[in-house]
């Protein structure tokens, strides 16, 4: 991260903390909470899906385990905040199990495997009514004594800040280089001594922990959760689309993606009512076609054309088009 980027990020987060001093509308703050929540979830996903290039479409599993961890553990008398952290622990354990199995697969097979696991988690939650409340859902305790949306907004900003700082640090570390090497070419990574299974698993564990915290916050805001909401495929897809739209494998991408996507979704909901999902879908398709590297990625790559980039300031990865991939692998044994 360059000096200028650091100032921009610091300024952005300081301003974000000041927002509740000016904005008093609960409705606006709730939307802003959603923006930061998905920025944090996007940053978390970005470690696995962006930097390591492993397209996970099952992050709703960790989101749901975090949400249900908080709800169910506090039901048996454990204090809410302790339940939250135990829930995060459970999400990390499930990530370890899911990762150990699914990271044996590459490419689209990995993506399918993550979807399958998330569906298994959702179906288990649906079909254990004695434990989870099943389809009826379950109550979630409040994490804050004041039920004010302000506390949720601030914790959303804090979670995003945590995920951002973590990502910025990882990006410049050996671990970050290893993640990017795995995305670019797993065989090459192994040939220089990268234990790719272990590195991928670590990235998933960190990602799952952050995602689970987000799940718990979300659940506590709405006070009531059902499996089809917090563990749905829709949730997995949204967690993945936010950073992809903003720029997968870039530091700022998930934050930009969430600001654009979540505000656009809300605006469309107000203007187009029932048709908002259609407009939303068209927007996503347009971005994928015209900005395949995402918003932040496109800007970064355009800037690189004008000046020589300093070491370490990676431009966003350019996705390989299928025909190009076919050409690259045509003579491979």
């Amino acid at each position: 991260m360059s000096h200028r980027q650091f100032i921009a990020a610091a300024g952005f987060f300081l301003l974000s903390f000041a927002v509740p001093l000016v904005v008093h509308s609960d409705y606006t703050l709730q939307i802003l909470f959603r923006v930061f929540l998905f920025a944090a979830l996007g940053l978390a996903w970005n470690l696995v899906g962006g930097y390591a290039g492993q397209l996970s479409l099952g992050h709703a599993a960790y989101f749901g385990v975090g949400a249900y961890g908080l709800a169910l553990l506090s039901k048996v008398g454990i204090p809410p905040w302790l339940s939250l952290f135990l829930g995060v622990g459970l999400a990390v354990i499930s990530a370890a199990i899911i990762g150990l199995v699914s990271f044996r697969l590459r490419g689209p097979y990995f993506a399918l495997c993550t979807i399958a696991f998330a569906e298994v988690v959702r179906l288990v939650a649906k079909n254990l009514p004695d434990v989870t409340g099943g389809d009826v859902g379950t109550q979630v305790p409040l994490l804050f004594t004041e039920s004010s949306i302000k506390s949720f907004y601030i914790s959303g900003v804090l979670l995003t800040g945590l995920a951002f700082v973590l990502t910025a640090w990882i990006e410049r570390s050996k671990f970050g280089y290893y993640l990017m090497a795995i995305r670019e070419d797993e065989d090459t990574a192994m040939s220089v001594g990268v234990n790719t299974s272990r590195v991928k698993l670590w990235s998933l564990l960190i990602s799952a922990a952050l995602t689970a915290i987000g799940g718990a916050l979300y659940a506590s805001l709405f006070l009531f959760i059902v499996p089809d909401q917090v563990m749905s495929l829709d949730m997995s897809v949204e967690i993945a689309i936010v950073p992809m739209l903003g720029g997968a494998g870039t530091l700022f991408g998930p934050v930009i993606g969430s600001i654009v996507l979540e505000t656009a979704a809300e605006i469309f909901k107000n203007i187009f009512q029932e048709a908002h999902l259609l407009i939303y879908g068209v927007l996503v398709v347009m971005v994928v076609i015209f900005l395949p590297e995402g918003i932040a990625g496109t800007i970064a790559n355009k800037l690189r054309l004008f000046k020589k980039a300093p070491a370490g300031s990676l431009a966003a990865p350019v996705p390989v088009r299928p025909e190009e991939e076919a050409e690259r692998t045509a003579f491979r044994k």
Partner: protein
Amino acid sequence: MVLLEAKHVSKRFGGLKAVNDVSFAVSRGEITFIVGPNGAGKTTLFNLITGVVHPDSGSIYFQDQDITKLAPDQAAKLGIGRTFQIVKPLRNLTVLENVMLGAFLRTSKPAQAEEEARGILTFLQMEKFLHLPARGMGLPMLKRLEIARALATQPKLILLDEVVAGLPTVEAIKLAMLLKRLPEWGISAIGGIEHVMQVVMKIADRVIVIDRGVLIAEGKPQEVVDRPEVIEAYLGPKYKEIGL
């Protein structure tokens, strides 16, 4: 002193015996070339040594340690570096970062990895390209990048799979002259080459010839190319008596 030893190594893919009961040894500080026609089993042999695939029978020793069942990353940690015949650069990373990745095997500090990488890129005369992404590079530079990345892991042995294939002759010879200096750094090398014999003759200390998975000749470069069975493998039985 023996650095790498393969004992009766065989590997079959379905009905094809890619490597068939091959035994050889490589000494420290030596540049060995494995030559053989297309499909002879050179790449499979490299994949066996680096743990990408494991032999069906036989065993491989590196510094007297059994590495037969090792995974590729463990082989790299022990000091076996490799390049790929079909170049495999990290396309979206810069040249410098590609090489830093190799250096991270021996250090955790990015600054130190960068210094290491710069040194190696200077040796390979690539200092002009440090900050360019690998995806825009041409084949000659990508071949060098493969070598640079492998050298950055500070290997004791480096496997160079078809490292000059597809290069213009001048470029191939230039690269070969750089590789000839590897033993100065205490690095032994095994090269795999199909037909660029000028390079082999210039820099090889020893040559191993394989054909259809079987080791057919072994020795000093000049004496190996004069053997009738080598000529037959390349040109067919008709030319056996005529010579190359």
